[in-house]
């Protein structure tokens, strides 16, 4: 048995009354990958922050290399050989790779930065993580995956024996993920201990030596390598999930949303589709195929050049969000924090955002009535919160998403467009969101489900519309929609070129976060919890 690098015992951490970690034990040996698994809000991030020295626990012991220590600050943790790669990378985009590698610890000669030494050592460090880039290139020019490697290389050079990776694969494509897992197993052979957090159970099956499962701040079990996906899920959510995609199909009724010939030069061309009452229309396609752009144009946030949108029989004025809303359409945007929520406001305020106008008489908001309604909605959605006055930013991803959906449920929209509704949402909350979709269609509403998660879009939709390069590439009925069929359509558009035919914003975004070619981009999410 290899040496123990790190052990924590009985860690307890409390935040304003809420117990974030309760009596958690965890240990890490040299040369192993120890996965931390749990739903959002289960306490993984808190535990990572304790290990990183960012939070000091209220109770418990931390033992590093056989000695009990107090981790008062991230610097102290780093000194003890614990390095954390956070989801948000901490590189300076305009400095070179080499400069980033030595950020804050530039080797010096006669008071000047020793450039020769930096270049020499930088290549060695990059070799160790298998990254082949010129150390002189600015970090801005690297892809996300490469940037992660730079961070890892930097961490390893500071003699880190413990490497904590907090959801590194969430932002990676499949090939990039493969590469990262390879590097991880190489590091494991070199005797580094790795703590790995991920929501993708398939990755866990590929790399984990041990899996500690957290639920509601408690460690509920340690699973061995090779634990089945079912085992992991049931330990994580505390019950067995009978069906991952519990779609209850309805007999479709009248047409509630009809889009015909929608075109915006450079973004999407001649997009037409219909959604009927009681129906879920899935929209699949590669990232950049125009799905989100169409949704935003239909909702009236962005303009379109030609085409027609009819919502529940009426034609709202083009580009008028309010008119579209009044006609009965709601949009849950893909960027939950950036566009869905007012993070500085409370749960109740966020839930009441759409209906506030209707609750206003003579300029005054009937806040009492609003609170009654938002409180009932929070209860109905089972939003885990300390009360509706809790700030929405303190909730977990799944609960935040419920709030975004809830504000539209209160408005009683006829058609709800969900753009990536389960991105970054844990398994349990996902199923709850699917149940909401069922409730909506049971009640005769219609849902448009845009998702990059192929199993999800196939599992929850009655029909699947596939977009490719800004056009509708085809439509599949529920029984024809296999992953292969969807993907074949998604890359079908002749002359599909990743960079052609998209808006300037897209190109800009593209430049800021360089991504690999589309073939690698494809199906990036298909492995995610596919087997569950």
């Amino acid at each position, binding site marked *: 048995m290899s040496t123990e690098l790190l052990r924590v015992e009985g860690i307890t951490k409390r935040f*304003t009354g809420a117990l974030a970690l309760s009596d958690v034990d965890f240990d890490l040996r040299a040369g192993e990958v120890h996965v931390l698994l749990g739903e959002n809000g289960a306490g993984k991030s808190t535990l990572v922050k304790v290990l990183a020295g960012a939070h000091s626990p209220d109770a418990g012991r931390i033992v590093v290399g056989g000695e009990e220590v107090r981790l008062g600050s991230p610097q102290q943790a780093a000194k003890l050989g614990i390095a954390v790669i956070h989801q948000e990378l901490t590189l300076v985009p305009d400095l070179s790779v080499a400069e980033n590698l030595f950020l804050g610890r530039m080797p010096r000669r006669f008071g000047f930065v020793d450039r020769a030494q930096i270049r020499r050592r930088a290549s060695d460090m990059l070799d160790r993580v298998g990254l082949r880039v010129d150390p002189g290139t600015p970090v801005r020019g690297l892809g996300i995956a490469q940037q992660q490697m730079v961070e890892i290389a930097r961490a390893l050079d500071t003699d880190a024996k413990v490497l904590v990776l907090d959801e590194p694969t969430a932002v990676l494509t499949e090939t990039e993920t493969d590469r990262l897992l390879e590097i991880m197993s190489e590091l494991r052979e070199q005797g580094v201990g790795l703590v790995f957090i991920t929501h993708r159970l398939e990755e866990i099956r590929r790399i984990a030596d041990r899996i500690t499962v957290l639920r509601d701040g408690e460690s509920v079990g340690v699973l061995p390598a090779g634990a089945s996906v079912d085992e992991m899920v049931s330990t994580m959510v505390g019950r067995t999930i009978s069906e991952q995609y519990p779609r209850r199909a309805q007999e479709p009724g009248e047409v509630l949303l009809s889009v015909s010939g929608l075109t915006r030069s450079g973004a999407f061309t001649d997009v037409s589709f219909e959604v009927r009452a009681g129906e879920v229309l899935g929209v699949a396609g590669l990232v950049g195929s125009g799905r989100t752009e169409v949704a935003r144009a239909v*909702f009236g*946030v962005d303009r379109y050049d030609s085409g027609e949108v009819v919502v529940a029989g009426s034609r709202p004025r083009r580009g008028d*969000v*309010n008119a579209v*809303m009044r006609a009965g359409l709601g*949009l849950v*945007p893909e960027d939950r924090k*950036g*566009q*869905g*929520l*007012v*993070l*500085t*406001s409370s749960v109740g*305020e966020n839930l009441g*955002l*759409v209906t*506030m*106008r209707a609750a*206003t008489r003579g*300029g*005054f*908001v009937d*806040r009492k009535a609003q609170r009654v309604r938002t409180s009932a909605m929070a209860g109905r959605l089972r939003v885990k919160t300390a*009360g509706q*006055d809790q700030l929405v930013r303190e909730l977990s991803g799944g609960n935040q998403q419920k709030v975004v959906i809830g*504000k539209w449920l209160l408005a009683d929209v006829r058609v709800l467009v969900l753009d990536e509704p389960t991105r970054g949402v844990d398994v349990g909350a996902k199923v709850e969101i699917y149940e909401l979709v069922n409730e909506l269609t049971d009640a005769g509403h219609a849902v448009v489900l845009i998702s990059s998660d192929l199993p999800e879009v196939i599992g929850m939709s009655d029909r699947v519309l596939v977009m490719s390069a800004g056009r509708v590439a085809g439509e599949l009925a529920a029984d024809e929609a296999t992953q292969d069929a969807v993907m074949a359509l998604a890359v079908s558009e002749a002359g599909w070129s990743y960079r052609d035919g998209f808006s300037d914003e897209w190109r800009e975004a593209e430049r800021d976060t360089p991504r690999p070619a589309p073939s690698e981009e494809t199906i990036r999410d298909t492995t995610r919890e596919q087997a569950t």
Partner: protein
Amino acid sequence: MTTTVAERGRNRPDLGKLLSDNGALGGLVVLVVALSIMAPTFLTPQNLLNVGVQAAVVAVLAFGQTFVIVSGGIDLSVGSVAALSGMVAAWSFTEAGLPGWLALVAGLVTGLAAGLVNGVMVSYGRLPAFIATLAMLSVARGLTLVVSDGTPKSTPEEITALGSTIGDYLPVPLLVMLLVFGLTGIILTRTYAGRTMYAIGGNADAARLSGINVRRSTLVVYGLAGVFAAVAGLLLAGRLASAGPQAAVGYELDAIAAVVIGGASLSGGVGRATGTFVGALVLAVLRNGLNQLQVTPFWQQVVIGVVIALAVLFDTLRRRTK
């Protein structure tokens, strides 16, 4: 407002809670206690009323500024707009021969117009609030000089009344300040316009995607700030019985400081009327107290700067430990 404290289900009137929710209030209490001990003339009814009068102009500007800051903007022009409004009112009376009450209305309309121009520049012109209102700071001050031709103008009775005292002891500026305070609290907590300010300041994109007309709300915000600036300008002119071309120079910075001391966030979405009120009082108490202690105006500036920095520093620390 204390009502929101009660609404949060913390029904006990808990002083500790109140203090920890309003960081600046603790500072104000400390300041008042310290000055009462150091300057025997401080804690007299007459002097406290003076503090109220001295706070009034900046407080009214700060209440208007609160709307702007809560909605994620900033208004650098309020001092100049106050001066312009006061001057237009005085000019309308002395030069244009309008009746006093109409001159007062003309002053208010001037403030509203200047605020709406700010709002149009920010919402439709997409100028950064800082730049748009910086431009207005210069334009409004310039217009004040143009209208006045560089000399002070006397004000009609209707405006001078705003600076007077009712029955020897109740100063009108104090009343106006309390009235505007109440109005600000009601607007921020109860009205649609006020609630949308929080949403827009917290996340303009989310507000727009929830059907809030962000442009129109922005117009309302800057329009309100303009009207409040006009009220402040009229108060100031009333107290001095004349409108001066160099009135209220630099007041916008005091107003911003009061709002921020009151716990509002310059990045938007956070701020309350009570906080701003306390912030304005902190500044006024400090100025008054330093005068009582016969600290020279030169040193006063130093002390006030330090207090502003400390107040915000403590507030940041308090939030972080929470």
